[in-house]
Each structure stands twice: as structure tokens, then as C-alpha cells.
């Protein structure tokens, strides 16, 4: 068991800086998700922790040891790759015990370890098969088994569920959560899927252009995003953004949204009127009769999911996505009004930073 401490980490490819002076602390036994869009540097960061990518600047500590320039096999980490990287010429058992075989462990020990890992991952009946004869989910379990057999201090996952279909992804998410609960090991998990990050991690690190945009517990990021980037990235479907103008008054923050005026709880904002973006999640908007509410518009799309319905409304401030009761029957083309839960409206200044309540 070990924590991961990253200090001042930077990675440059020639003149291009993909990771910039990054500090991160992953507590012992924590499940930390590195979340961000393609090209944000999350995989590079994971590969630097693994030792597969050299570090341009900064230090990495795993437990009590500094491992910044240590070779991968000596870091006490194991990695699960997106494409599984299972050797096609080896059986499941041989794939799982490949590291032991390289280290010259006896066949008996290897067989024992393969059986133990197979039991944990329900692979007992597949040990003699080759990867080509396995389904995607089974392959992913073998890849996890290969990491498990090394008994690492830290598990690293590089988008491990990306190649699976939606149903299997859901199942594997549960299995990974169970595995983390059973093992209690530190896990660092790279993903661009915020659902995976929200459901698996106890700490999410949102990366944007090689820098940490925000980190914290999943619900903290959901409820109090530090900036527009995080607000837009966390939450599915995404938060709605509406351009408005804001003025701090004695009653609170007075926001002009088209023809309507909203009075929100006071925010730390300089005196005078300023352009802002309001951020409202679909579940914090209520449909009203046309002419009521703060905005009105025409229904463009109705997405009925069974348990809930999303209504996309075209307004003069842009399209707004509203989550409604599944029982509500609405027709495309109808006109509706929109009312906001004012306590849950986020306000971002012109630079994209969230304006905190005062």
C-alpha cells in the first residue's frame, strides 16, 4: 500500500509542453481518476507515473520512495492498458503469470498464482484459452489479472473500459469498484468518461491543457465547479450555459437575461455591470407555461429515456436542455417557459472562473 506524491511535474516534447508544473497527492488506498478531454495530458501523466515516459521536470514518489527515474518494473506499479495488450501466443494463465515467468519463478508457483487470480476475477474456466477466444470483457479481466498477480502498491488504469460496449462497461465498472473495495490498493485511473470517474473515484482530477483545472471529491466537483471547463465536463447531460450581464446589488446578484431579470444569491464580483455566463444543470430547470418563467422557447427535441425525459428548448439565448418527469408528454414545436432553481445557478465571469457565493 502506498500513496502517490507528484511535485512540480512537467513533460515537454521538444518545444511542446504537455504537462506543466503539476502537483498531485493521491492518498494511500484512494481511487483517483484523471479526467479530461483528448490531448489534455492525462495519459502522459499516467505513463510518467508508470515509468514509460521520462520526466522533464519534477518528482514522483510512490510510498516512501522517489521513483522519478526508476525503471518501470521497480516502481511497484502495475498498469492495465486500453487495448489490453494480451500476448496472443500465450494462454490466459501464461498471460497472467508472464511477469513471474520472466522472473524465473517455478511452474508450481505460477500455476498457484494463476489459480488465485483467476478465482478473484472469475476466469477459472478460461485459463487454457488464448486471448483470441475471449470476449472483450474477459480480455479486460485477464489484463487486470496480469496486474493483480504482481501484487503492486499502485494500480494504473489507462482508459481500460473504452473498448467495451455500453452494457459491458457498466458491468466492468462494478467489478472494478468491487476490486478496489476488496484490495484497498491505491488506484490511478485515466478516463475521458466522466460517468466512470464519478462512479468509481473518490477523488477526481480534471485536467485541461496539461494543467489541473480542479480536483476533489466527485460531488464537490459536480456541485461546485471551479470554472466553466469543469462545469461543462462534469455531469451528463452537460450543464447549460446562458450568456447574461450581472450587477451586484444590496439584494444579491442581479442578472439580466434577455428581457428577464433574476436575483441570485450575492457573489464576489467587482462593482458595476459585467458580462457573465450562467450555468444551469438540466435538472435545475423547471418547465412552465409559455409566458411564465424567465425564458421561453420552442421545443426542438424530446428525448424520452423511460425513467426521465430531456427536452431541448430553442430560446433566444441558445438551446437549453431541461430534465423533466418521464410522465410528462410534450410535442416538438410547442412553446414552453423555463424557470430556474436560483440557489443552484452557477455564475462564471468572462475568464470562465466560477464566482463564489458570499
Amino acid at each position, binding site marked *: 500500500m502506498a500513496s502517490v506524491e507528484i511535485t512540480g511535474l512537467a513533460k515537454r516534447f521538444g518545444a511542446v509542453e504537455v504537462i506543466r508544473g503539476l502537483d498531485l497527492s493521491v492518498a494511500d488506498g484512494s481511487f483517483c481518476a484523471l479526467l479530461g478531454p483528448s490531448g489534455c495530458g492525462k495519459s502522459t501523466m499516467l505513463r510518467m507515473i508508470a515509468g514509460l515516459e521520462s520526466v522533464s521536470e519534477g518528482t514522483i514518489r510512490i510510498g516512501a520512495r522517489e521513483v522519478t527515474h526508476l525503471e518501470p518494473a521497480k516502481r511497484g506499479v*502495475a498498469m492495465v492498458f486500453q487495448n489490453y495488450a494480451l500476448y496472443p501466443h500465450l494462454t490466459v494463465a501464461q498471460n497472467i503469470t508472464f511477469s513471474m515467468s*520472466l522472473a524465473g519463478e517455478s511452474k508450481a508457483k505460477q500455476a498457484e498464482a494463476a489459480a488465485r487470480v483467476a478465482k478473484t476475477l472469475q476466469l477459472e474456466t478460461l485459463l487454457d484459452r488464448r486471448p483470441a477466444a475471449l470476449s472483450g470483457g474477459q480480455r479486460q479481466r485477464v489484463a487486470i489479472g496480469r496486474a493483480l498477480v504482481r501484487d503492486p502498491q499502485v494500480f494504473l488504469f489507462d482508459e481500460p473500459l473504452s473498448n467495451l460496449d455500453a452494457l459491458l462497461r457498466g458491468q466492468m465498472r462494478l467489478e472494478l469498484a468491487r476490486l478496489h473495495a476488496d484490495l484497498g490498493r491505491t488506484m490511478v485511473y485515466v478516463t475521458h468518461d466522466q460517468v466512470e470517474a464519478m462512479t468509481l473515484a473518490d477523488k477526481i482530477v480534471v485536467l485541461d491543457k496539461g494543467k489541473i483545472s480542479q480536483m476533489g471529491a466527485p460531488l464537490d466537483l459536480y456541485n461546485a465547479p471551479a470554472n466553466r471547463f469543469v462545469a461543462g465536463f462534469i455531469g451528463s447531460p452537460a450543464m447549460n450555459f446562458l450568456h447574461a450581464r450581472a450587477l451586484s446589488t444590496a439584494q444579491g446578484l442581479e442578472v439580466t437575461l434577455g428581457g428577464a431579470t433574476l436575483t441570485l444569491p450575492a457573489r464576489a464580483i467587482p462593482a458595476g455591470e459585467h458580462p457573465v455566463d450562467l450555468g444551469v444543470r438540466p435538472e435545475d430547470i423547471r418547465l412552465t407555461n409559455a409566458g411564465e418563467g424567465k425564458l421561453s422557447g420552442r421545443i426542438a427535441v424530446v428525448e424520452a429515456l423511460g425513467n426521465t425525459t430531456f427536452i431541448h428548448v430553442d430560446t433566444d439565448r441558445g438551446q437549453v436542455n431541461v430534465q423533466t418527469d418521464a410522465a410528462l408528454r410534450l410535442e416538438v414545436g410547442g412553446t414552453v417557459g423555463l424557470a430556474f432553481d436560483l440557489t443552484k445557478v452557477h455564475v462564471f465571469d468572462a475568464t470562465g472562473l466560477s464566482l463564489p457565493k458570499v
Partner: protein
Amino acid sequence: MSGISPPARRFDLGSALLTLLTIIAALIWFFPVYWGIVTSLRYDDQTVKDFALIPMDPTLKNYIFDIENSNLPIWYLNSTIVSVGVTFLVVFMGATTGFAISQLNFPGRKALWWMILASFMVPVSALIVNHFIIIADMKLLNTHIGIILPMLIAPVTVIVYKQFFDGLPKEFREAAVMDGAKEYQLFFRVFLPMNWGVTTALAIITFIGAWNSFLWPFLAAQDEMMMTVTVGITAVQDTFGVAYGRVLAGAVLAGLPVATAYLLFQRRVTQAITLSAGIKG
């Protein structure tokens, strides 16, 4: 009885003509080979009289004569030593060089790669005099090593291996490195075994090429006891004059191992030709 029957095959004139042309071309190609085999089964006095497709009075006399009156068994042994040696060394060196150029970072890597590519521009026949002088200077004429050494120049093998190793996802290497694999373990336990199909195909085609090679073994082996089969049968011709039956029996014996190898590993040979297609030009 199920109600589903396979769709009726429609007669296609184009396909039929193409098939007919292919059969004719195959017959034209095969006839000399067939005629050679048939002639080798005839008595000498019959070779210019009996023109039947199937010999009237077939005999193995020519084969027995060749085996008893020439050094054919020794030539076979020499061919085997040379072909197996060339095959093993070409494949091993091709694989290791391909691995190094594809997977390792070392000074001069690109220069080495360009040199290997450039070596295509020089035909082997243009180097044969140089080879002869060098091998003679090294006192290696009439030795197995002397015959083998110049035959090890096989850039196509390096290129095929490099291309194959380049095409493997980098995660295979990284996963093995995470597991503690050293370079030699990466090569022998990951890259080469993932590649047995290519290795087998290249080995077979190299073996066939080495067995069939004539010009260099002809120059390097002047001593009859060091000759390979392909060189040796020319000696049979010289010895037996125009004894067609005996000459052709020698030719059949010389080509037998290669033909057998081809028949056994047809699919692999085709694969090797496909792999090196566009490289050899």
C-alpha cells in the same frame, strides 16, 4: 427436408473463359516439368523414340545410375548444410536487425536502415567478383562457410521483420517492460513468438532460395566434394554427355526437396511472397 436450397449457380462466360485460360497456361508451364520427369523414367535409347505421354517401359535405372555413379549423396549433404545454415542465419539476423531498427534507439539507427534499403540497388551478380576475391583471400573457397557467407545478404528479411515489428501496438512492449522484461526477453518471448507465421514463411522461402541458388555455389565450390546439388548436376551433364535420362533424373533429384517443401508449406510460401511483395519489386 428444409425449404431452403442453395442459390442456383449461374453460368458466367467470362469466368469460364478465364478458368480455361488459366488451365491452358498451367498446362503450358507444367508440361516441360512433366516431360522431364517422364524422360527420366525412360531408357536412354527410348528418349528420342518414345514420345508417348506415359512411358511404355518405365524404369528407375537413371536414378540408380546417378546415385551410384556420382557424388549425389554428398551434394545433397552439402546443399542441406548450406541451405539450413543460410536459412537459420538469414532469419535470425533478419529478425534481430529488424527488431533493433524497429524497437531500439541507438546512434546510427537511421543510417543503418538507409544502408539496408540502399543495398537493394546493387544486384548480387554485380558483387559476385568481389565476393569471390574476398572469400578466396580468406581462404574460404571450397568450404561450407565460404559458400554460406555471401548468401547471408538478405535485406528483404530485415525489411519484412522491421515492418512487422513496427506494426505491433507499442502496448505489447510496454506491458512486458512493466512486467520486468529485458530487451532479449522482449525479443525472444514477445516479439519473435508473436511472429512465428512470418518467421516460418521467411524460413521456407529462404531455404528454397538457398537450395536453388547456383551462381555463387558454382564459383565457390570447385572441388566436387564441396558442390551443392544444383552445381553437382551440371557435373553429371558433363560426365554423361547427352544422356538425357540421367541428366533429368539428376535434376528431379535436385529439385525434389524444394518441391516437397513447397507442397507441404504452400500457404506459408504464398504468405512470404505476399509479405515481400512490393519490396523486392
